């Protein structure tokens, strides 16, 4: 049982023990690193090749988005477009007139990626913030509060981890449809906003690792459970809360099937769904690649911002127990 606790601590507070070990590791090997053997050079070459293979497609995506559609037939090999243009971004953002959009290779159908971008932000923001909060509340109750049937109830909740999403997706769709919630944000976020078993489990493990004395001091000061949770426990749990919040944000940002079923309308359409629709609206025989790549770039940019702002946190939270 102590093992469980230790593990929860290393994984949720991720960074502390890890970075320390990582740091001493690299210090310890400084001497060996000086030797630049052929093997080491080859190893670096493989690593850098993997990095290039990882990033090049994104470069090509942006490069295509900056190319005029009419140029694509003769200008699809050079590393820089011959006549760079912002028109593809402007037209998918709905900032050009319909004629201009069609002239630039669009299908003429109404597209408004600005709105889809906002919808995606609302969708993933609502899910990540509320789910993290509600799961933290539940996790705290299971970790600290005493009430009859606690452990049995926790077992039942965790058993839901065994049920694959597709299985609950069909009846959930019927439920949301019968509630008249199709094409509303309420219907889209309802199944994920209140809880997810993994987050309850993960946060409970962390709360169990907080020394009891901290809360007991607050109890002696006459603070109730609610006050302890908000003013003592949550501020101490920033690390794991951010970890859960981040992974949930990424998950919701990538989500496709559920918003496709429940939020197809223009008003609630998220980026992933919009990209699918946009692809199908493509004119003629050849898809509107420059427009699709402009839309795709827009779906990547916010994630890059997230990575730049919180990269270290995100990378270091990817402990194997942080798996979703």
């Amino acid at each position, binding site marked *: 049982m102590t093992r469980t606790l230790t593990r929860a601590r290393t994984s949720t507070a991720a960074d502390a023990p890890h970075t320390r070990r990582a740091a001493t590791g690299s210090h310890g090997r400084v001497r060996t690193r000086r030797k630049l053997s052929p093997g080491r050079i080859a190893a670096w070459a493989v690593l850098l090749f993997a990095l290039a293979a990882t990033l090049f497609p994104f470069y090509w995506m942006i490069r295509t988005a900056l190319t005029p559609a009419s140029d694509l037939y003769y200008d699809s090999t050079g590393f820089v477009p011959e006549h760079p243009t912002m028109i593809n971004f402007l037209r998918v953002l709905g900032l050009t007139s319909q004629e201009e959009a069609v002239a630039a290779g669009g299908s003429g159908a109404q597209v408004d990626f600005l709105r889809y971008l906002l919808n995606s932000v609302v969708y993933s923001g609502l899910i990540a913030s509320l789910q993290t909060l509600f799961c933290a509340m539940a996790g705290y109750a299971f970790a600290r509060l005493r009430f009859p049937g606690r452990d049995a109830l926790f077992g039942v909740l965790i058993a839901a981890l065994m049920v694959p999403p597709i299985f609950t997706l069909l009846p959930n769709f019927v439920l949301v449809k019968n509630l008249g919630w199709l094409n509303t944000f309420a219907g889209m976020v309802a199944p994920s906003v209140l809880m997810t078993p993994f987050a309850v489990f993960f946060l409970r493990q962390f709360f169990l690792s907080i020394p009891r004395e901290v809360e007991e001091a607050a109890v002696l000061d006459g603070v109730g459970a609610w006050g302890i949770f908000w003013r003592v426990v949550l501020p101490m749990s920033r690390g794991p809360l951010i970890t859960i919040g981040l992974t949930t944000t990424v998950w919701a*940002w990538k989500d496709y099937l559920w918003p496709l079923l429940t939020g197809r309308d223009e008003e609630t359409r998220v980026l992933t769904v919009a990209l699918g629709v946009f692809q199908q609206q493509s004119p003629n025989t050849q898809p509107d690649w420059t427009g699709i790549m402009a839309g795709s770039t827009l779906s990547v940019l916010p994630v890059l911002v997230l990575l730049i702002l919180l990269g270290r946190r995100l990378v270091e939270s990817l402990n194997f127990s942080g*798996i979703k």
Partner: protein
Amino acid sequence: MGAKTAVAPPDQGTGIRAAAGKERKRPGRRRDDRKAAWLFLAPALVGFALFYAYPTVRGVYYSLTDYNMLAPPNFVGAENYTQLIGDEQFWNALKVTAYYVVLNIGSQTVLALLLATLMHRLTRSVALRAMLLVPWLVPNVTVGLLWMWLLDANLGFVNHVLEALGLGTSGFFTSPDLAMPTIAAVNTWAYTGYTALLLYAGMLQVPQHLYESASLDGAGEWRMFHRITLPLLRPVLALVLVVSLIGSFQIFDTIAVTTKGGPVGATRVIYYYIYEQAFAQFHMGYASAVAVILALVLGVLTAVQMRLLRASRSDLA
């Protein structure tokens, strides 16, 4: 049942420990936070009841009916399941999914292990890891569209390269033989970095001094990988493998934007088959029966995962 045996032990353990700690500290006072607890649990319990428990029961019920979302469901017993046995498309979907899982998991795991080992032995750079993670952060829909463009038969970058090398061009997604390997390769591209980071995190738990002493004894990199990294990583590797396996079985997005199950059913995986049955054909009852089968397969895998989680705990913690 699997869930209980898998999850209960650590839970009971901590429960007992918490209780014991409490009793030891203040024997006279027993605290019962029933009221506060229900307040804390209310949102999660409502969510669990409405969107996990109720739909699970409903899903099993639908699988025993002829529900089509238009008329109320009629109970038909095991009819959907007997129909499944003779349904060639269902068996094809299982076969195609298995094919994808083998291709994807095979390539992804080998490449991720290679990347993780290289990173572990060469650098601790956070920037490098962050960059390798980018494809995982991007929606599968974007990944699918991006590769459709790169592999486009006329103007795609990859075909330009193949042409320059004197090899024939290919419409990767439109060939029945190539479509599935192509999708497996695309998702390998998207998930290898993520998998590598998980394995790398596992490698960081291997004590550094083992490598130092092995190196003093004159052991080469390959020998160290074989004798130190691989054996000590085994529990983590097993866990990562099962998690990727579960994810791999649920492939949908990439197929939905690229091949839509085609050409001639070559990429109609089980998830896509369920989707088609439920939302294109409105055979909600039948789709639910297929989903029950998939749930059973994934349930077994999840139970295995829970066991491995415990195994890795005792080995590495």
